[in-house]
C-alpha cells in the first residue's frame, strides 16, 4: 500500500489524540513518499504520551506539510522520493505498525547501500523544517547539573577534561551541604518557573527527597521493571527464530502494564521510563548508562529548563576468569569505573543541552560529589580557565547568575 491509498478508517486503532491529529492532516500525509511517512507516523501514533515540547514539534511539522503546494512538496521530499523501496516493504502494515516498517527500512537502506542518500535527505529536510519553524526560545536560561563520583574516596583520573575548554575548573570547592544546595536550586527554579515536565531530577540509585514540582526518574524505582524486562528478554531469546530485529520489535511493543508498572502513575512518564529500558542499550544493566541515556532522552524530548543528574556506582563487570571460576556470585560495584563513565556522561549531558534552543544563555555545572572539584560553564564566565580559590557551593551557584 502507498500513502496515496490512505483512508481515515485505517487509523481507528490509533489513540484518541493521535487519530484526531492524523485526520486533520490526512490529505497532506497522502502526498508523502513511503520512505518518509512511516517515520512520522511512528511519532504520531504515540502522540498521546508525548511531552509538550514534542507535541509542539509534531503539530508544526504536520501544519507545514499540509500547507505545502504540490510543487513545493515535491521539492521538499525529492531526496526521499528517490529512495528505492522493495515490494516487501510496500506490503507491510506500516499504518498500524510504523515502527516495524522503520526497523525494516533501516535494514533495507543499509543492504541496498542507500543509507547515505537517506541520511542526506533527512538532514536536508531537518534543516529546512528548522528554518521555517524554528524552535521556541526557553522562557529562562537552561541549567544543567551533573553530580558524579558517588562513593569514590581517592581519585587520580583527571576529571572534566572535555569540558574544561568551555568553562572554569574550580579545584577548591567546599563540598559542605553540596547536594542539599543543588536540590534547593533546582526546586527553586521549578517553583518559580512552573512548566509541565520543565524541571527534572534523574538519579542512578535511590532518589533523594525532592520537591514534587520536579519530574523524577531513578534507577532504583525501576528495579522491578528491569527484572521483569530482563526475564521477558531471556524468554524471547529462547524462542525459535528469534533474531535481534524481531527482539527489538517485541521490545518496542511492550506496554507499561506488561511489566507491572504502576497504573496509578503518570502515563506520559511511565511510557518515557519504559522507553529508556526497551530502547536504550545497556540501560538494563549499568546504572551509569541508564542515567546518561535518561538525561539524553529527557533533553531531546522534554527540553527541560532544569536538569539535575546524579550518577551512582554501577555494577562491576566481572573479568572472564572470575566468570568461569564462579568464585563469586555477589554483585559488586565499580566506583572508579563509574566515575569515568559519569565524567564522559556529564560531557554528553552538556552537549545535548547545547543542542536545545538558547545554548548561548545556558549554564552547566558538574561536581565531583563530596570533593573539591567542579566545573562551571556559564555565559558570564570565561572559558578554559582554572580557579584555585576556595569557594562554597552556594557561591558557585551564585556565579551562574
Amino acid at each position, binding site marked *: 500500500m502507498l500513502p496515496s491509498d490512505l483512508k481515515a478508517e485505517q487509523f481507528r486503532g490509533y489513540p484518541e489524540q493521535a487519530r484526531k491529529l492524523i485526520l486533520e492532516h490526512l490529505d497532506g500525509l497522502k502526498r508523502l513518499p513511503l520512505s518518509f511517512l512511516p*517515520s*512520522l507516523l*511512528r*511519532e504520531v501514533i504515540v502522540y498521546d504520551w508525548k511531552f509538550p515540547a514534542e507535541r509542539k514539534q509534531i503539530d508544526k511539522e504536520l501544519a507545514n506539510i499540509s500547507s505545502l503546494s504540490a510543487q513545493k512538496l515535491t521539492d521538499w521530499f525529492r531526496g526521499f522520493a528517490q529512495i528505492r523501496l522493495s515490494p516487501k516493504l510496500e506490503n507491510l502494515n506500516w499504518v498500524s505498525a510504523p515502527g516495524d516498517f522503520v526497523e525494516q527500512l533501516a535494514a533495507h537502506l*543499509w*543492504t*541496498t*547501500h542507500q*543509507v*547515505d542518500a537517506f*541520511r542526506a535527505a*533527512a*538532514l536536508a529536510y*531537518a*534543516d529546512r523544517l528548522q528554518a521555517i519553524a524554528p524552535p521556541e526560545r526557553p522562557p529562562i536560561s537552561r541549567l544543567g547539573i551533573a553530580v558524579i563520583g558517588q562513593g569514590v574516596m581517592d581519585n587520580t583520573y583527571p576529571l572534566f577534561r572535555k569540558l574544561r575548554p568551555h568553562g572554569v575548573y574550580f579545584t577548591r570547592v567546599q563540598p559542605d551541604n553540596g547536594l542539599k544546595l543543588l536540590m534547593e536550586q533546582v526546586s527553586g527554579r521549578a517553583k518559580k518557573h512552573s512548566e509541565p515536565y520543565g524541571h527534572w531530577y534523574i538519579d542512578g540509585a535511590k532518589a533523594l527527597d525532592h520537591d514534587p514540582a520536579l519530574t523524577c526518574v531513578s534507577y532504583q524505582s525501576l528495579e522491578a521493571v528491569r527484572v521483569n524486562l530482563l526475564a521477558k*528478554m*531471556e524468554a524471547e*531469546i529462547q524462542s525459535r527464530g*528469534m*533474531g*535481534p530485529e524481531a*527482539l*527489538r520489535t517485541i521490545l518496542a511493543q511492550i506496554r507499561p502494564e506488561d511489566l507491572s508498572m504502576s497504573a496509578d502513575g503518570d502515563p506520559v512518564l511511565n511510557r518515557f521510563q519504559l522507553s529508556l529500558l526497551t530502547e*536504550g*542499550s*545497556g*540501560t538494563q*544493566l*549499568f546504572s*551509569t*548508562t541508564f542515567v*546518561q*541515556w535518561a538525561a*539524553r532522552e529527557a533533553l*531531546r524530548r522534554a527540553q527541560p529548563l532544569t536538569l539535575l543528574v546524579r550518577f551512582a556506582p*554501577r555494577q562491576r*563487570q*566481572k*573479568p*572472564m*576468569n572470575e*566468570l*568461569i*571460576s*564462579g568464585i563469586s*556470585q555477589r554483585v559488586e560495584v*565499580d566506583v*572508579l*569505573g*563509574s566515575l*569515568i*563513565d559519569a*565524567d*564522559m*556522561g556529564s*560531557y*554528553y549531558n552538556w*552537549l*545535548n543541552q547545547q*543542542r536545545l534552543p538558547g545554548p548561548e544563555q545556558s549554564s552547566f555545572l558538574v561536581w565531583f560529589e563530596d570533593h573539591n572539584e567542579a566545573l562551571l560553564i556559564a555565559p558570564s564566565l570565561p572559558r578554559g580557565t582554572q580557579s584555585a580559590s576556595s569557594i562554597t557551593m552556594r557561591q558557585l551557584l551564585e556565579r551562574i547568575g
Partner: protein
Amino acid sequence: MRLFAATTGSSSQEIMQKVAWERRDFLRTTGGVGLGSALVGLTPFLRAVSAPKIKKIVVVTFGGGARDQETFAPEGQENIPNLIKELIPQSTFFTQVVNRGILGHYVATASLATGVYESVNNFASVPPEHPTIFEYFRRELKRPASDAWVVAPSNGFNRIGESSHRSYGPGLGAGVILPKHLLASAISGPNTDYQHLLRDNYETPFHTPKLAGNEFQMRQLEGILKLSVSDFTAHARTLSSPDELSIYIARQLMRQLAPSMLWVTLHDIDIAHAGAFSLYVEGIRRTDRLCLELWKEIQSQPEYAGKTAMFILPDFGRDADMDSGGNGFQHHRTGDALSRTTWMMVMAPGIREGVIVDRAIQSTDLVPTLGSLLGISPSFAQGKPIPEVL
C-alpha cells in the same frame, strides 16, 4: 529529531579527509616517529625491488572501532602506548580507510575478507556471498586446510571462513576457531555465569546465532592445538577477557601449525555498546597490548620472523560526539563520516617504516593487496591493491 538531527557544513568526504589529516598530525606529535621526511620521500614501488618475499600473512581486525579521541588524539594516546611507541614506528600507516558498506561487525569483517561490500544479514549464521581471501589462497596455491585459520570472537563469525560462492565455498576455506565456544564446550559443571560470555554481540547483547558450518570441533583441541581440555580451561581461568583467549589460541595455532594465513578478529572494544565509557577504554588498552604481544610472537618464531606481514585495522569507526543522531562512542549507527573512516597499519619485512599515507583507501582494498603480496588473483574482489604496501 527522529531522522538525523545533526547537520554539518562539510561533506562526508571533506570530513573524512579532515580526520585523516588530524590522525597524521596527531602521529607527528608522538615521539620516535620520523614522519615528515618519510612523507616527502615516499616512493610506492621501492619495496618491490628490494624487499624479502612475504611468506605469511597475519591480519588483526577490531570488531568495534575505537575513535581518534580515545586513541590517536593527544588525549587518547595514553590508551594506546604500544601502538604509538612500538608498532607505528615500524609500520606504514594509512590514516584514511573508508568503509562504504554496512556498519555491522560480521558483515564488515566479511567484506574485509572478500574485498566486496557484502550484504549478508549481520546477525545470522550465513557465509559471505563472495569468495574469501582464504579460498583464493588455498585454491590458487594448492594449500592444505591447515594453512589458513580464522580466530573469531563469537558464534556469529563461524561462517566467515568460506563463502557460499558456487565456484569456491565448502572445503576450500579457512578453519574457524571460536575460542569462547570452545571454552563453553570445555567447561562443565553447575556454574553458568560464564554463559553470558557467549552473548558477545554487544549491539544486541542477548542474541547469539546458532552455530552452523565449519566451526572448530572440540575433538580437535587436542589433535591440532595440542591442548588437553584441562590445560585449556586451566589457562582460560588465568585470562581476563575473550580477546586474551583469542590471542592465546592464535599463538597456539602458530606454534603447532604455523599457518601461512592467520586472521584474528578482536572484539573486547565493542563493550562500548553497553554505554560504559570506562569499559570501552579498557577494551582499547587491552587490544593495544594484545597487538604488540602478537607482533612479538611473530618475531620470536622462526617460521614467521622476517617473512610475515601483519595488518592491523578496525572494521570501521564509531559515531562522533557531535552527531546528535547517535550517542557518541556507544554505537556506530549514524553512518556519519567518523563511523565510516578508520585506519590501518602494516608491518612487514621491507615495509617503509614510519610512513604515513593520507590518501583515502577502502576496506575492500585489503584483499587485492593480500593477493598481490601472495601472488594470487582475487578475481571477484572490488578493491585495488595498495601500492604503498607492495
